[in-house]
């Protein structure tokens, strides 16, 4: 087990290095002068020279890469061209809201979707199953911003239960955080509820046909124990995979929700950076997203062996 985890951690290093090389080349291999791209259309020759200097663009490519990697490893992600502040600092400020919303979304999704999927599989082809599947199709097909605006209309404007927009950190009190985070989380969650419920149902349907489920019933085990102790754990691996990829996608896919609900997270940071061609920020965001994907996948892979003792490496 220890060797397996070690092996998996070591295996993430080449992935991250390849991503880093790609990000590095992104700027250097773009046609034209990177400095000109960075500086924008209205730059003076002096500004260009300053940028070239700060990026070390006059050095050989390998030296540039070495310098850049060295900075990366020290946590120095460069300076934003737009605000002239440290990129690491900017992301640090914005990561909290995004992560909090993402976590809340995943918790809501799993808490609702897994029981929904289990019950749909248990009562296969009944009206409950039909209801869950219908919701699932709806969750897939309605765009996120539509759901967001509908939820705002109902809960914020008509019922006035929660504020329309904005964000408060949990450190400012759980109540204010929760009232502002619940709508964006629900909005984001619809598609993941649909996805996870579907996967849970499919996986459970397969497991419920297995011989050991019949054995459990033959022992006189109660149905809820059959479902949650005997079946769900066997059905867990595909569900975990979906939750893992879902979480990673969530981090990179919060752009729309953050815009709709005016949350100062990394989604909006990315949009702003792309619109302003703020390359250092874009580079940092690609690295961060890749890092999150790799980490989540690592955790999911390791968690498989916790759910299924046959998975030993």
């Amino acid at each position: 087990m220890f060797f397996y985890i070690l092996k998996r951690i070591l295996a993430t290093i080449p992935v991250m290095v390849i991503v880093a090389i790609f990000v590095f080349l992104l700027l250097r291999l773009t046609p034209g002068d990177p400095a000109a791209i960075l500086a924008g259309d209205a730059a003076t020759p002096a500004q260009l020279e300053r940028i070239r200097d700060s990026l070390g663009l006059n050095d050989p490519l390998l030296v540039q890469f070495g310098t850049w990697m060295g900075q990366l490893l020290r946590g120095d992600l460069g300076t934003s061209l737009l605000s002239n502040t440290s990129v690491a600092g900017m992301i640090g400020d914005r990561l909290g809201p995004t992560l909090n919303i993402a976590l809340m979304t995943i918790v809501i999704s799993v808490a609702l979707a897994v029981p929904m999927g289990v019950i749909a599989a248990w009562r296969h082809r009944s009206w409950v199953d039909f209801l869950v599947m219908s919701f699932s199709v709806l969750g897939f097909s309605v765009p996120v911003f539509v759901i967001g605006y509908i939820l705002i209309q109902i809960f914020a404007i008509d019922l006035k239960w929660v504020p329309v927009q904005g964000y408060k950190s949990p450190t400012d009190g759980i109540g204010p955080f929760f009232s502002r985070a619940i709508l964006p989380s629900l909005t984001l969650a619809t598609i993941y509820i649909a996805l996870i419920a579907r996967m849970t149902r499919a996986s459970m349907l397969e497991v419920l046909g297995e011989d050991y489920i019949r054995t459990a019933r033959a022992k006189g085990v109660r149905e809820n124990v059959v479902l949650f102790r005997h079946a769900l754990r066997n059905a867990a691996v595909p569900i975990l995979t979906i939750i893992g990829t879902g979480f990673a996608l969530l981090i990179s896919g919060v752009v729309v929700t953050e815009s709709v609900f005016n949350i100062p997270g990394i989604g909006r940071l990315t949009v702003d950076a792309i619109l302003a061609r703020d390359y250092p920020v874009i580079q940092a965001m690609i690295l961060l997203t890749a890092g999150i994907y790799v980490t989540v996948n690592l955790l999911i892979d390791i968690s498989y062996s916790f759910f299924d003792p046959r998975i030993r490496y």
Partner: protein
Amino acid sequence: MEFKSKDFTDAKRVLKIRGLTVGLTGRPNADPVLRGIDLDIRAGETHCLVGESGSGKSVTSLTAMGLLPKDALEIQGGSIDLEGIEITQAKPAQMRALRARRIAMIFQEPMTALNPVLRVGEQIEEVLNMHSDLSRAEARARTIDMMEQVHLPDVERIYAAFPHQLSGGQRQRIMIAMALILDPDLLIADEPTTALDVTTQLQILKLISEMQERHGTAVLFITHDMGVVAEIADTVSVMQKGRIVESAPIRQLLTAPKEDYTRKLLQAVPNLDPRAPRAPAEARDVITVDGLEMTYGGGGFFRASQGVRAARDVNFTIQPGRTLGIVGESGSGKSTVARAIMRLIDPTAGKVTVAGTEIAKLSRRQLQPHRKHFQIVFQDPYRSLNPRWTVARSLCEGPINFGTSRADAMEHAAELMELVELPRDALDRYPHQFSGGQRQRIAIARAVAMKPDLLVADEAVSALDVSVQAQVLHLLDDVQEKFGIAMLFITHDLRVAAQICDEVLVMQKGVVVEHGPAGEVLAAPRHDYTRNLIEAAPGRLWDFANFRALDRTAPATGATL
């Protein structure tokens, strides 16, 4: 041979089934699956339910357990009386309370019947948690005690083990412990030894009868294996197409069966007397295997491992028109040898010469032109044919790959259909439209379509009912005679080996322990392991086909009346 002969008429009746009819859910006019079953089982009695696949044996047992799949099957009439409780009317909660306490069940495949992600000890203990108020410590002690009763070794370690860490026999012992821990009145055993090796089967049968004697349990034993029936049954019911056609004490059924169907079923049971060896069609070797070795695994990045030596120093030759059988239990390496010869796996060492070419070390590309010389038929005809292809396409693919024109291949395919006794229009149909036996015929036709010199049959009749098995063995014989094919026949079933092999090779743990003419190896085994295998074969002293004990001095010639 000795049969059980105890009279149970005075014993307490545990299960009484009358007129039980089960049909497809929501379709009262469709053909029922069970048509008026009557069955009685008394305390201490072992009642065997025999019949071919699809006869309704398992449905009968699942109905008694109240475990019918509701959306597929439903009870349409009759009664099931378990010591005064009417099971057909029982509510789910009532039924749950009966299971494990009054009526328990063990299943065919102990690997899939146990939950792979829970420790086996916990799975036994769960029965106690569901049905009693024992404390954790008491439940655990009871579980450990029960595990000892079923003779599991090293119970503390096995308690904490997962199913995949145990052997097949150990897993079935766990199932038995689980079924009997609350001392039920009726145990239903649905083919509990079919997936096990013969020596393990013998141990499990002994264990079941030991537990039965100790607790006076009534046992409903479902099986298709007449040998097992002869060993354990007090009374037998024969099922066919949802009906019980004959019900009698064991001796009466085996010596003087009344019904035609019972006679037919018994006559299909091959006996253990080996066939007379046939002379080779030509005096040359189709295949020569020399020092074949196969080691799985080994190496490793962090920790070097030894690997598993699945086959060691295997040598044999087969001549045209002759059949060599490789027999052995699971894990003996018999299938490994078959796969290595087919080059489905790459042998670690040794030579395999087929039709004059050494193929053991050829690359995939070099091997391709030689593939047509050796063909294989697999065990499971449900999975070895592509479900989305017509029979014609499966049959023609190989010849077309080797340059036959489509028209010629189709014509040959039609001839092959005749050879395997299927109608010509079968060519346009899909595998799911055929029965298991018919599918195996198609699989044989597919192999023969390549006009091979060597046919490898890997447990090719093991998944079939005995009557179908006899027909398929017959077909293999015909094909072999017609084309002078050499055959390598892999089987765990000594009866089958006796029927079809000229020569037998016995493997144990990757090593060949005995090799010789079938007559010698099976009638006068020299190695202890071979002797154990033969002695473990249930019903080996009974000549089912002739309704009498086997006469050792004058070997029977086969199924004649």
